[in-house]
Structure formats: structure tokens, C-alpha cells
């Protein structure tokens, strides 16, 4: 096993009955990289991500995440990753601190560590003290998403998987969100992110474009723009999705 890649996938495939959601995708992700996973709705991004997170067993192909096999070592994978799903996944009927304590507790953080993390997060997210005792349901979506990301990396995982983390969030909050992603990446966390926003694709080190369950293209944003003779990622996306 090569140690210079943290995620390795070879012909990874997932079929639901006769429908092939993910069709033999192969790629590798380096530690600390921000890896963008782009594609239209239904292209198979979420399915691919769920296989890598150990939530779904592949139909065929090979893949390792943080050195663990996606067939047999799903629970070890889960110890080493953070995951933020498409759906908002914190508890609306718990307060901010309760959510942090709950998820921190699941990952086995000690009490002192939890306290330290909570203070750090509240400070980082600039959440006023008056809101920390409120139920999450009363918070604006932008704050909730930033909190969800912070909770997803509360246990300092090697990799964090983000499934359309900025859906429905305003541009300013999106910008702040990406600042947080950069900081995580800077701290050595590998970021695997799916998105619809092509401006966000520009922030990634490398992006892969998925079309109908296959990876149609995989390179740095710069190279992709050059290859497809496009001014921005949006044009690249349109060209690839239409099959040039």
C-alpha cells in the first residue's frame, strides 16, 4: 500500500438493481488536499462519497480510505473521518453546546478536551454567548452549517467529507465557510467536497467532474480551464456535461 495517498479508489462501482449509480471510478487523493467532486444532480457524487465513508458497501472495485478497506474495515474508516451530509445533521432540538458535547462524546473526547473545543468553536464561529443555550432550530442556516462543519472535524479526523455543504447558504457565509475549509486543510486535514457552485470549484486543489456515474475529467482547475479552453469552471462544467 502506498502511503502517499490517503484515499485510493480503483474501479469503484455501485449498482442499485439494474441502475449503475457509480460506474468504475478511479482516483487518488493526497493528504491535505482539497479535492472537489463536481457533477450534476444524480451524477453519483453522494453515492460515491457514502461508499468512501463506510455507509454503503460497493458492488465491485477497490478503495481504501486512510489505509482502511471500504468493504471490511468500515468502522475503522469511521474513526478517521468526519462527515457532513447533504441534509442538516445536527439535532435541532438540542442547544449548540449540547450538540457539540453529544458528537464530541461519541468520538470519545475527554471532558477537558470537550470544554476546550467548545470554547474554541464558540469563539471561532463568533456565536454570542446568549445563543449557546438556545435550541439549534432558532439559528440561521449559515450558522448551523458552519457549526455542522466544526462538529464534523471536532475529533480532528484525517479526512473530512463534505456533501454539498453550502447549499442554500448566502455568498458571504459561503466565503466564510471556505475560509474554515482552508484552515482545516492548512492543519493537515484532507477535504473531500462535493458542490454545485462552480466558483467553489476554483478553490479546490483538484476537481473531478462526474457525469452519469463516471469521472469524465480530473485535474487542477487551471489545467481543466486550459484543456477545455474555458474562461472559468462554469464553462468547463457545461462543456463536459454536454459531452463537449
Amino acid at each position, binding site marked *: 500500500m502506498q502511503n502517499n495517498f490517503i484515499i485510493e479508489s480503483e474501479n469503484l462501482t455501485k449498482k442499485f438493481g439494474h441502475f449503475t449509480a457509480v460506474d468504475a471510478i478511479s482516483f487518488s487523493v493526497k493528504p491535505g488536499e482539497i479535492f472537489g467532486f463536481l457533477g450534476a444532480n444524480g451524477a453519483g457524487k453522494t453515492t460515491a462519497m457514502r461508499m468512501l*465513508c*463506510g*455507509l*454503503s*458497501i460497493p458492488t465491485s472495485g477497490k478503495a481504501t480510505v486512510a489505509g482502511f478497506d471500504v468493504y471490511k474495515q*468500515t*468502522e475503522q474508516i*469511521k*474513526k478517521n*473521518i468526519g*462527515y457532513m*451530509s*447533504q*441534509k*442538516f*445533521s*445536527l*439535532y*435541532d432540538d438540542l442547544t449548540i453546546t449540547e450538540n457539540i458535547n453529544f*458528537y464530541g462524546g*461519541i*468520538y470519545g473526547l475527554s471532558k477537558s478536551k470537550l470544554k476546550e473545543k467548545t470554547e474554541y468553536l464558540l469563539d471561532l464561529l463568533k456565536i454570542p454567548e446568549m445563543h449557546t443555550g438556545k435550541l439549534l432550530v432558532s439559528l440561521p442556516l449559515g450558522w448551523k452549517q458552519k457549526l455542522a462543519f466544526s462538529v464534523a472535524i471536532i475529533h480532528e479526523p484525517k479526512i473530512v467529507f463534505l456533501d454539498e455543504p453550502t447549499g442554500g447558504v448566502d455568498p458571504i457565509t459561503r466565503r466564510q465557510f471556505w475560509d474554515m475549509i482552508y484552515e482545516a486543510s492548512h492543519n493537515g486535514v484532507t477535504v473531500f467536497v462535493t458542490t454545485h457552485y462552480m466558483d467553489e470549484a476554483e478553490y479546490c486543489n483538484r476537481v473531478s467532474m462526474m457525469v452519469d456515474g463516471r469521472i469524465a475529467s480530473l485535474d487542477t482547475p487551471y489545467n481543466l480551464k486550459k484543456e477545455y479552453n474555458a474562461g472559468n469552471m462554469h464553462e468547463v462544467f457545461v462543456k463536459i456535461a454536454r459531452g463537449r
Partner: protein
Amino acid sequence: MIPLIFFMPVLQLLVLSNAATYEIKNIKFNIVDYDQSHFSRELISKFTASNYFVLNDVSFSVENSEESFKKNQAKLIIHIPKDFEKNFRSQGLSGVQLVINAEDGSAAGIINNYALNITRDLNIDMAVESSVMPEPVPMINIDYSNWYNSELDYITYMVPGILVVLVTMIGTFLSGMNVVKEKEIGTIEQLNVSPIKKYQFITGKLMPFWFIGIGELAFGLLIGIIVFKIPMLGSPLIIFMLASVYMFVVLGMGLLISTLTNTQQQAMFIAWFFLVLFILMGGIFTPVESMPAWAQAIAYFNPVAQFNRAMRMIMLKGSGFKDVLPTLYFFIVYASVMMSLAVWRYRKTES
């Protein structure tokens, strides 16, 4: 939610145990008296004097009287034919017709019983009065003694059963809805992607409901004893020992349902299906002994029936630990099976 969890059962206990009764009182009846004799008046006064019957209407036509059946105004028509007294005196034999509205079979049976008792009374009176029989006929006198519920108090019989229903409903619904709700809002995914162990997840999910169920039972027992003056002949400790295992049976059942379904609607439907079956066949409202053999065989595997029986045994008869030991074993096996199935069905990783 918490006030609701405690308020609803109390209300249910108060309403159900008072309203759900086999005792039939205030039965409205019509008289059609063609005879207008001493005997016929005697018969009528015996009915009106009893606690069970209330005179609704007196008329001279059975047809008219039947109208009040259709309007639901009366349950019983007493039809006294002409020459009722005369025939009795001359031939020593006379008839009276009781017409009972038997839409509800069991109620009709009870009305019939009450009416027969009253007419039998009259028979004896009339026999003595008219001295048709010169000497008393030798008879075996039967003495009744009602054990365990000497006053045949219905509430005494019902409260233990209703407590069983409450605990069962709370356990099945709270646990059944809970995991499905997390599936619906998507938080389950966040848990499944964490290294949390299955047993940790399930323990964390079920313990709160276990405590709520046991708390509810304690609360209901207190109300039963204080408000309804239900006897507690056996040891409450044995009840709680059984209940603590029983809770795992119903919680496991709820959890299993929620692992098999994807929406709260589906879970609700399945939970209701089984609960209605369990409760109706649980011997709470109708005795298991009077069910057909196949139903009794099913009832044996019905945890509600088992717990209901044990509750009544302990509370009303003072049965001890040894008497309910088979039930305890049964619950342990049942809970183990339910929990194992639920744990097995709960998947952190889908195939």
C-alpha cells in the same frame, strides 16, 4: 412532550377504567300489559324496584313498543298476555314474554340474566301466595363466595389491565417512532458515519424510554391505589421486576419496527397493527379462556396477555415470585429475541 407522556395515561386510566364496564345498569324497558292484574303489577314493580331496570314506557301494543327499539329508547320489552294471572291460578302454568334487543350479544345475555333472576323471584312469591304447591319442593341451596374481588368491582379488575396497555403503548410507540424520526430528519446518517457501537446506540436510544415506562407504571399504580383503592395484595417489587424485563420486550419490538421502516407513518401503522392485536387478544377486556383454542395458542405468545395475567395475579390474588416465574422466563426469552432481531436489523452500513 413530557407532560403529555404523563397526562395522557392518567386521563386514560380515569376515563377507561370507569367507562369500560360490563356492568349494565339503567336498562330501559317497556311494558305491554294486557292482563292488568295483581300478578302483572307485581312483576312490573319487581323490575322497577331493581337497580338495573328503568321503566321507559307503558303501552298496550307490542308493535308500538317495538318502535322504541328502533329509536334506541328501550332494550327490553316485557309482554304480559291476557289471562296471565288467571291461567296461573287455574292451570298452574302461565307465560310472559321478554323481548330483548340483542344487537350487542353480550349485553343481551346480561339483560336476560337479570330479567330471569327477577322473574324467578316472582315465581317463588306467586307459588307461595297461591299455594298451588302445598309443600315446599326440596331444593339445593347454592351459596356463593366471590374470592379476590368480593364485591365484583369492575374497576378493581380493569386497572391492572389498563396499566399494562399504557406501559405497552408507551414502550412501543416511543421507541418505534424515535429511530424512524432520525431517519426522516437525517441525523441517523451522522450517527452511522461515526464509530459509535451498535450496542451503545441502542442502549442510548432505549434507556430513556425504559425509565419513562417504569416511571409511568409506578405513577399509574399509585393512582390506582390512591384514587381507585385497588388492592395490592402481592409485592410491588415483583411487579417492577417483571415490568423491568417486560419493558425490554416492548422497546425491542418498537425498535425492530423502526429498523424495518423508513417513515414514521409506516412505523405507526405497523405498531398499531400489532398493538391492537395484542391488546384485544390480551385478556384485558375479554377473558382469554373464552377464546377459541387457536386464539388461546396465539395468546400464549402475546406479551400483553402474559403481563396482564401476572399483574392481576399479583395485585388481586397476592401471587408470589414463584407463581409468576414462568412469565418472567417468558419475558426474558421474548426480550432477548426482540432485542437480537432489532440489533441485527439495525445497519450502520448498507449493503
